[in-house]
Structure formats: structure tokens, C-alpha cells
């Protein structure tokens, strides 16, 4: 029982520790921060820069604005977070499908690997901010007839752009992980590439794929938030961060709610992948060599 609880307790202790460190720093450091020769070496600890944790909580429980009927800030944040999370999940799924498809092509054809892999790596050096307006413009041109390209689709597409990369790299390594003996065995059984792929390469790739899927999930969340900002999609957590930061000087505790909302999204994404890895645990067994 204790052994089970240990990681949970340690996790909670870690979070508490960060909170304590925050408050201790705030209490000890000067409000103006520490400046040596004109360079700020330690950040300001004023209420404006570092609100008390209590103030953040307090703010989260009060309404978003003074307008009548305004919902509580935490509720609005949660709604924004779940809106963004939905987009991130779509982006993740698209990224996973595309990433695995690219890995399959690269595994099957050696020339495809030489041709594609540099582009896959290069794709991640393109700044997201530069990409966002482009995706939106191209997307709008796609709108024909009954189909209309929505802004959220652009966001999901950009999220998938970040998500596919670790998946394709992880899957490629995983597909290549079976030992020579396993491949000899399949050849001896006289089964072709596709059957070998399904029977040996796919199951063998799971231990490589799971960490990649977790990275992809976190990337999809980050991609969604950043893309929301650069595309200007309303209703999500990215927009909330920008909007609330604007009221920062008057209401410094407010902008922390969406930040926690973003953290929550990351945790939820990692949690979903953890559930997946639990379901696939039999593929994570390691063969003990004879």
C-alpha cells in the first residue's frame, strides 16, 4: 500500500515545494528584484510580478469581470481549457496518424527514408508563428461548396504539425527494433513484409511509440495554445492568456488562472497517454536473453 502511495505523495510534495519556494522568494527578495550593473539577475517580487498564491486562488473564485452575470474565473478558465483541449486532441490524432504513416513509408522503402527524414527534421525548425497565417490563408482557399474551413481547423492543423514529429521518429525507431533473429524467423515462415510488419514490427514498436505519443500530446497542447494566439481564435486558453495579461497591471492575479489552465491541459494530455500505455503494458515486456 505504502509503495503504491509513495509516487503520489512525492508528486504532491513536489507541487507543494514549488508553492513554498514561490512564497519564500516573494517574502525574502526585494520588491524591485536584484539588479547588478543595470542587469536584473533576480526577478521582481512585487505583487504585480509575483502575486501571492492566495491572491491567485481568490481571483480564480471571483467572477471574470464586474459585469452582471459574469461567470467565476475558474469556470471560464475551465471552459476555455476544455475547448482548447478538444482542438489539441484532434491535432494529436491527426499528428499520430500522419506520423505513423510517414514512419511506415520510411520503414518500407529505404530511399523514402533518405528522402523524407531530412524534411521531417527540417519541418520542426520552421517557426510556428510564421506558419499560422499561412495555414489560415490556405485553409480559407480550401473552403468550397458545403465545406467551410474553420479557424479551429487551422489551430488543430498547427498542433498536429508539432505532434507528428516525435511520433514519426519514435515509430521509425520502433519499427526497426526487432532483432535479426525475429526477422529471420519471419522469413523462414515465408510471410511477406506486411505480415511481418503487423506480427513483429508493430508490437515491437510500442515501447518506442509510447514516449513519442506523450511528447506528441504535450506538443499538441503547446501548439494549440500558440496557434490560438497567432490565429486569433476566440474561446480557447491561448486567447484567455493574452486577454488577461492585458489587464495585468490592474488585476495581476487574473492572468494566472489561464496559465494554470494550460498546465492542467498538459497534465490531462500526459494522463491520457499514461492510460493508453497501461492498456498496452503487455507490449512493454522485455525479453530476457537466454
Amino acid at each position, binding site marked *: 500500500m505504502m509503495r503504491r502511495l509513495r509516487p503520489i505523495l512525492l508528486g504532491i510534495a513536489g507541487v507543494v515545494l514549488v508553492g513554498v519556494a514561490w512564497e519564500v522568494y516573494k517574502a525574502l527578495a526585494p520588491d524591485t528584484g536584484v539588479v547588478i550593473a543595470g542587469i536584473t539577475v533576480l526577478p521582481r517580487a512585487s505583487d504585480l510580478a509575483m502575486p501571492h498564491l492566495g491572491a491567485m486562488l481568490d481571483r480564480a473564485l471571483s467572477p471574470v469581470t464586474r459585469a452582471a452575470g459574469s461567470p467565476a474565473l475558474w469556470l471560464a478558465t475551465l471552459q476555455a481549457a476544455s475547448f482548447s483541449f478538444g482542438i489539441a486532441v484532434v491535432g494529436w490524432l491527426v499528428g499520430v496518424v500522419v506520423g505513423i504513416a510517414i514512419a511506415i513509408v520510411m520503414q518500407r522503402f529505404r530511399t523514402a527514408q533518405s528522402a523524407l527524414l531530412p524534411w521531417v527534421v527540417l519541418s520542426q525548425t520552421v517557426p510556428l508563428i510564421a506558419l499560422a497565417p499561412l495555414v489560415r490563408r490556405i485553409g480559407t482557399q480550401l473552403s468550397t461548396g458545403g465545406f467551410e474551413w474553420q479557424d479551429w481547423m487551422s489551430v488543430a492543423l498547427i498542433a498536429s504539425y508539432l505532434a507528428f514529429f516525435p511520433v514519426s521518429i519514435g515509430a521509425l525507431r520502433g519499427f526497426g527494433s526487432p532483432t535479426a533473429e525475429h526477422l*529471420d*524467423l*519471419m*522469413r*523462414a515462415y515465408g510471410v511477406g513484409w506486411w505480415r511481418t510488419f503487423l506480427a513483429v514490427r508493430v508490437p515491437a514498436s510500442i515501447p518506442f511509440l509510447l514516449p513519442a505519443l506523450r511528447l506528441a500530446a504535450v506538443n499538441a497542447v503547446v501548439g494549440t495554445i500558440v496557434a490560438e494566439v497567432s490565429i486569433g481564435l476566440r474561446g480557447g486558453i491561448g486567447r484567455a492568456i493574452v486577454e488577461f495579461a492585458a489587464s495585468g497591471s490592474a488585476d495581476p492575479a487574473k492572468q494566472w488562472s489561464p496559465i494554470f489552465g494550460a498546465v492542467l491541459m498538459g497534465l490531462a494530455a500526459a494522463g491520457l497517454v499514461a492510460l493508453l500505455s497501461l492498456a498496452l503494458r503487455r507490449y512493454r515486456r*522485455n*525479453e530476457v536473453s537466454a
Partner: protein
Amino acid sequence: MTEIAVHVRGVDKTFRTGRGRTVDALSGIDLEVAAGEFVSLIGPSGCGKSTLMRLIADLDTPTAGELTVFGKTAPRARLDQDYGIAFQKAALLPWRTVRGNIELPMELHGMPRAERRARADELIELVGLGDFADRHPDQLSGGMQQRVAIARAFAEKPRLLLMDEPFGALDEMTRETMQTELARICAETGAAVVFVTHSIPEAVFLSDRVVVMSPRPGRIREILTMDLRGERTEELREDEAFFERVSAVREALHGSPSAGAKGVENR
């Protein structure tokens, strides 16, 4: 005339090692294995014994010469599943149970579920793993993993079994137990066996004939008929005739060296 399981005539195998250089792994190999016969290939590392087995299995193709398995070409025999195979590493799929691993070839070849399950149970009994059918490979000892690999090799009742140092990684005790069991299983199934090993007592204990090979290029130096009548039991290991054969194989391996071989040794 008895049926011929493996027929090898004038087979060469040359590997490219890049930059235009080549290595002669096998040169002028002639060998015939009769149906139901147990033949061991023995020799120092680099003599091409594993390569020869891989040629028979069609995991590699000969550079020159003629090679047939039950009168068919090696690729045809492979596609017809005329042989079962086991390697030095058990090469079990870690995510499958013992039963799942043994069922693998039958599953891939589309045997109905009930049928392959019955066959797997039979094989699990045959190799003495009755209590471990639902365990995964990481829960088994090395010897048990190798038993599973052997059961898998026998799964589709092959008339020919190809084994590449299957007991090479096992400790001496387990190894002798496994040899006795393999001899029993082979006697029961009547399969021909091509068995690669670098252990002289192992080769003598199991084989009808021992093929002694020498390296660079891999050639057959001598083929010794063991002629040890009767069952392979533990008593045989203490038998006078057994020691005699061991000495004979050892001499063939080390003794009467050609001038070239001596030159290498003295360097």
C-alpha cells in the same frame, strides 16, 4: 533408397564486405542429409557452419552450386514450410505467452484457432512446460525459453529441423538435459536435423554423422559416422564408445593440420 532431405553440391558462398572486398565463407561444399538423419556441423568460428545452415534455410543464397531440400529449391522449400528452425537466441516474441509463441507459425499460416491450440498444448507437454503455458518469456529461465523455441520449431511437424547452436547460451547442466530431450523428441518425430554446434560432446551425443569444418575458406574437412546404436540416454555419456567418438572428432578438428593451418598457428 532412402529419401534425401538436404542435397548440397559444389556450393560456394562469398560475402561482400564493402569497398569491393569479398570473404569466402564457404567453398566447394558437398553434403547429403538423409530423411530422419541427425547431422551436426562443427568447426571453429568463421568456418561457415552457420552460413551453410542459413543457405539451407534460404535465409541467404549461395553464390554458386546446387542446393535442394526434399528435391525442391531452397526458396520453394522455405515457402512450403518444409523445415522448422531454431537459433542460438530463443527469439521469442516478448509480448506473447509461451502458448502464443508456439502458436505463432501456425497462426501466420492460417491454421484454425482450435486446432493450433490443441497442437500447442501437445507441444508444451512434449517440452515439459505444462505449468508455464500462460507465462511470458521474461518469466522463464534461459533453458525454458529455448524449450519454447524448440517447441515452436516443431509446431508444424517439419520433416527437417535446422538448429543454429540452440544450446550455445545455456549452462552445462541445462545443456545436457536439453540434449537428451532433443534426442528423444527427434526420435519421436523422425525429423531430419541439421545441427550447428561448437561443442564436440554435444555433436557426438546427438548425431548420426558429424561434419567437421575448417575456416577461411569454409570447407568440409571430414565427415565422421558416429554409429552409436540405440537410444541417447545419460548412460551413453559414460560409454567407452562415446569417448572414442569424441576423440575422433577432436582429432579431425585439431589434428593432422595442413601446412597452411600450422603456419597460421605459429605466427
